[in-house]
């Protein structure tokens, strides 16, 4: 099946036609041959017949020649004879060869013709040999046999010819029949062949069709088994290819399909999930719908709570709402006081005898129990089970519920409601009411927090406002003295002024500079106090004396005012920082004068308010302070009624600083005031330890300066300051020496042994003031020389620790320093006398201060007539009672 159908069909038909052709040729050749053979036989037999006829003629002549010889003995006969004999013999041989395969004829020739001829030849021979012819008189007779034989032979010949002719005809007929048969055979074969070819083709095709059919049914086995050859083969190949493509496509499709399938499955799964979620949502929705109603009520409840942040309205709203929501008839809210650990009724409804039940202890009754446990409690009296005392016990209640309000585990109070009818509080109601109570608790907490926050916020806002007010004030307060200082300085520098005028200008400059310094000090003090860095140097102080000093000072400043002192006799001494208390007194007095602009009395009282407290009152009859401003009066930067009072100078710091100072002493500064009528500021100070009740000395005396040693060493590298000190001290009768560096101090001290050293801390050279002070105090030869520190560095305590006798922070009033020098020079000899009653109170004060500075405790001067003797430099005398 290797060839194409066309080839095969062609080949088949060529084969069939060739076969028919060859068969015909073979058949024709065969028939022709047989016909020729038959014809040849006919010819041969015709030739043989002719030869037999000729032989017969010649034999007759032979016989005629013999007869003539016998009769005549003529030799010529003999020759004729012999010639005939020879011809007969020759013909006979020819006939014999012609008829060689016909034994009948040969037999006739050999047995009949040849002997007849031989007998004629023998007769001749005999006759010739002289013998008389003995037989029939004529030899021709002898030929009788011969003629018979000849006839016989001829008859055979004829027969033979007829047979040959007959077979020729037969062959011819046979040939036709054969041809017919053959053609039929060939046609049959062709048909068979065609059938097989057709069958082979149709088989493959039908196989292919089957294969295709199976493929269409998804079975590839048959197709795979099909051999790919010939025409159908190509079809198969093409089909296979097509199938392969289709299969590839199909695989793609299948793959795609699988993907789609997978996606579809996924989607299905998701869908199922969504469906289940939907169901869940639906379930939840149902639940939510149920809860919505509750929430709506809750919302309404909480909405009602947001309407106010004020406590009382809030509580009333809460109670009304809860009673309504609970379907109750009575209810109450009790708030918890953490300090007293009690619950008190704040609002109630439906209750008549709340007074009796207004206060509850923790754990007392059901209400107290609910509060203590911070848990809801329900009492269903209908069942007659609970007999514990309830808030509503006085009523014939069916049931009551106690709802503690708790925020962050802090008990705020309890809400309780009760029903008069038979309905109990079921669990749903209990839960709902608990939720309401929780919300109420939050609202309550918010309200409380809001109150606090609002207050704090107001305070902060106020403080902020005050601070910006301060900036304006400070700006004004600082600019005013600065304007004077700069203005007069400019006038002095740029204009020609008379000496009197110049002095006036300078005085103004000086005063304004002092004022500026005061302002700056105030700011600094406040700042230090705010930072907690203000140092107090306490000493035992006679308040009466301080008051006296201040009254005199301020009286001098205002002729409009009349300053009156009212100091209790035997006012105890107090242990305070004299300078600071002085500052406070000064502040209160200046305020009293400032805020009573139309003048009038200012009364200063000092008295013992109790066994351990001294009070000082400063009363004026001026503007007074509005009640609402009194709380803030001591706040830093606060000033009353800014528009009306700004004229009155000040920084708004004085009272703040004053109160801080007094409080730092363990005391208090308070105000009582009626707006428009005046104010009373009260300082109360603790008396402190071991303060005998002395009779404080008051009076005005001259300072008596002892001139035992008048040498003062000024250690100062600022020439202007040094010059000022020198001039002032010289003016007070002292001799001075100035050095500007630490190293020079020791030479001067050894050589001249000054009574006092005034030491600046910042010095040129290697040694600073601290080094100088240390070295002086370490050397026994110089340690007794008192050292006054004059510096802009405010480290008073350090100075005292290192052994400084006094400490001045620049800028300071120069006369204060001179006072200190006075005191120290008089004590430098080791003996200080306190003279009689005519002596200066300042001396007493100075001694006291000095002693205290040195660490002594001066309890008071009982008898001024007594002589006070103190040995200085005795370090072991750490604390000594001096009378």
């Amino acid at each position, binding site marked *: 099946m290797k060839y194409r159908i066309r080839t095969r069909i062609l080949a088949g038909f060529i084969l069939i036609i060739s076969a028919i052709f060859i068969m015909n040729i073979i058949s024709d050749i065969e028939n022709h041959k047989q016909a020729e053979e038959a014809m040849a036989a006919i010819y041969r037999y015709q030739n043989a017949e002719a030869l037999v006829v000729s032989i017969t003629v010649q034999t007759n002549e032979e016989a005629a020649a013999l007869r003539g010889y016998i009769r005549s003995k003529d030799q010529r006969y003999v020759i004729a004879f012999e010639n005939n004999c020879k011809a007969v013999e020759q013909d006979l041989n020819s006939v014999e060869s012609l008829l060689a395969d016909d034994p009948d004829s040969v037999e006739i020739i050999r047995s009949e013709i040849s002997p007849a001829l031989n007998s004629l030849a023998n007769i001749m021979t005999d006759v010739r040999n002289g013998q008389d012819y003995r037989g029939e008189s004529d030899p021709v007779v002898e030929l009788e046999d011969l003629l018979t034989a000849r006839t016989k032979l001829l008859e055979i010949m004829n027969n033979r010819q007829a047979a040959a002719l007959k077979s020729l005809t037969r062959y011819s007929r046979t040939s036709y029949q054969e041809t017919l048969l053959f053609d039929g055979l060939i046609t049959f074969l062709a048909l068979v062949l065609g059938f097989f070819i057709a069958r082979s083709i149709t088989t493959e095709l039908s196989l292919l069709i089957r294969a295709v059919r199976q493929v269409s049914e998804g079975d590839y086995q048959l197709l795979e088994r099909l051999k790919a050859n010939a025409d159908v083969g190509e079809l198969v190949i093409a089909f296979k290819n097509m199938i392969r493509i289709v299969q590839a496509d199909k695989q793609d499709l299948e793959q795609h399909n699988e993907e789609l399938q997978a996606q579809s499955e996924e989607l299905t799964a998701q869908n199922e999930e969504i469906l289940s979620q939907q169901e869940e949502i639906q379930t939840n929705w149902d639940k939510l719908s149920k809860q919505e109603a509750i929430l709506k009520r809750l919302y309404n409840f909480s909405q009602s709570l947001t309407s106010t942040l004020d406590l009382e309205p809030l509580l009333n709203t809460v109670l009304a709402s809860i009673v309504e929501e609970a379907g109750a008839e009575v209810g109450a809210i009790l708030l918890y006081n953490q300090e007293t650990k009690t619950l008190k009724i704040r609002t109630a409804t439906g209750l008549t005898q709340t007074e009796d039940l207004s206060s509850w202890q923790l754990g007392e009754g059901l209400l107290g129990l609910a509060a203590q446990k911070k848990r809801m409690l329900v009492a269903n009296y209908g069942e007659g089970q609970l007999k514990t005392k309830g808030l509503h016990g006085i009523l014939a209640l069916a049931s009551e519920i106690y709802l503690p309000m708790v925020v962050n585990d802090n008990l705020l109070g309890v809400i309780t409601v009760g029903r008069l009818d038979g309905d109990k509080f079921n669990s749903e109601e209990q839960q709902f009411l608990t939720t309401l109570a929780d919300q109420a608790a939050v609202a309550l907490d918010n309200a409380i927090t809001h109150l606090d926050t609002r207050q704090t916020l107001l305070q902060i806002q106020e403080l902020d406002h005050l601070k910006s007010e301060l900036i304006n004030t400070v700006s004004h307060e600082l600019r005013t003295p600065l304007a*004077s200082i700069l203005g007069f300085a*400019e006038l002095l520098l740029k204009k020609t002024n008379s000496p009197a005028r110049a002095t006036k*200008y300078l005085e103004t400059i000086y005063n304004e500079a002092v004022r500026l310094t005061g302002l700056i000090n105030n700011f600094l003090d406040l700042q230090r106090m705010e930072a907690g860095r203000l140092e107090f140097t306490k000493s035992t102080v006679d308040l009466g004396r301080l008051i006296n000093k201040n009254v005199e000072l301020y009286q001098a400043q205002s002729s409009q005012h009349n300053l009156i002192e009212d100091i209790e006799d035997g006012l105890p001494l107090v242990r305070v920082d004299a300078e600071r208390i002085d500052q406070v007194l000064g502040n209160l007095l200046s305020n009293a004068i400032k805020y009573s602009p139309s003048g009038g009395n200012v009364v200063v009282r000092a008295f013992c308010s109790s066994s351990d407290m001294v009070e000082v009152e400063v009363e004026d009859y001026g503007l007074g302070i509005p009640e609402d401003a009194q709380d803030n009066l001591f706040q830093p930067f606060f000033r009353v009624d800014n528009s009306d009072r700004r004229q*009155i100078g000040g920084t708004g710091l004085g009272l703040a600083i004053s109160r801080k100072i007094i409080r730092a002493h363990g005391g208090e500064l308070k105000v009582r005031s009626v707006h428009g009528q005046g104010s009373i500021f009260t300082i109360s100070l603790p008396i402190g330890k071991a303060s005998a009740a002395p009779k404080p000395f008051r009076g005005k005396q001259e300072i008596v300066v002892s001139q035992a040693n008048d040498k003062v060493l000024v250690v100062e590298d600022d020439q202007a300051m040094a010059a000022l000190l020198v001039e002032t001290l010289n003016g007070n009768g002292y001799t001075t020496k100035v050095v500007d560096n630490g190293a020079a101090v020791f030479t001067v001290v050894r050589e001249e042994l000054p009574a006092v050293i005034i030491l600046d801390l910042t010095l040129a050279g290697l040694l600073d003031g601290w080094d100088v002070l240390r070295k002086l105090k370490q050397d026994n030869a110089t340690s007794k020389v008192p050292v006054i520190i004059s510096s802009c560095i405010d480290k008073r305590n350090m100075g005292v620790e290192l052994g400084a006798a006094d400490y001045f922070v620049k800028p300071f009033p120069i006369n204060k320093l001179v006072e200190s020098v006075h005191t120290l020079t008089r004590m430098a000899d080791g003996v200080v006398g306190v003279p009689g009653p005519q002596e200066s109170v300042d001396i007493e004060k100075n001694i006291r201060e000095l002693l205290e500075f040195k660490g002594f405790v001066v309890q008071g001067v009982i008898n001024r007539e007594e002589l006070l003797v103190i040995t200085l430099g005795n370090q072991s005398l750490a604390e000594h009672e001096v009378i």
Partner: protein
Amino acid sequence: MVKILIVDDEPSIRFLVSASLEDEGYDITEAVDGLQAYDIIQKDKPNLIILDVMMPGLTGYELCSRLKNDASTRDILILMLTAKGQENDRLESQQAGADFYLRKPFSPLELIEVVGSLLENQVIAPERGSVR
């Protein structure tokens, strides 16, 4: 004689202003607050007022604006002395109708010059602080 009224609650500033103008040949009067100044103006109208802002009773701005809104006193030159913050004093002086303003601390020599110029021209160049 040119009459100048100095209005300031601070004695040192009044003194400074009067001392500055002392030798210039003006007739100088002083007032310690706005109300007193108003009384003086009603009695004896000055040519120029040197007016402090921060004063008790009637502030400088209030007095200024009152004078500038009154036809009888509108022509009085007003020089404000301010000690407040930076920008709003200029604006407030302007709004009150002041002719000029000086910030504390001020230069007495400049004050002398400003007063002289104001009286002479009644107009001052803006860069020198005019509020007009």
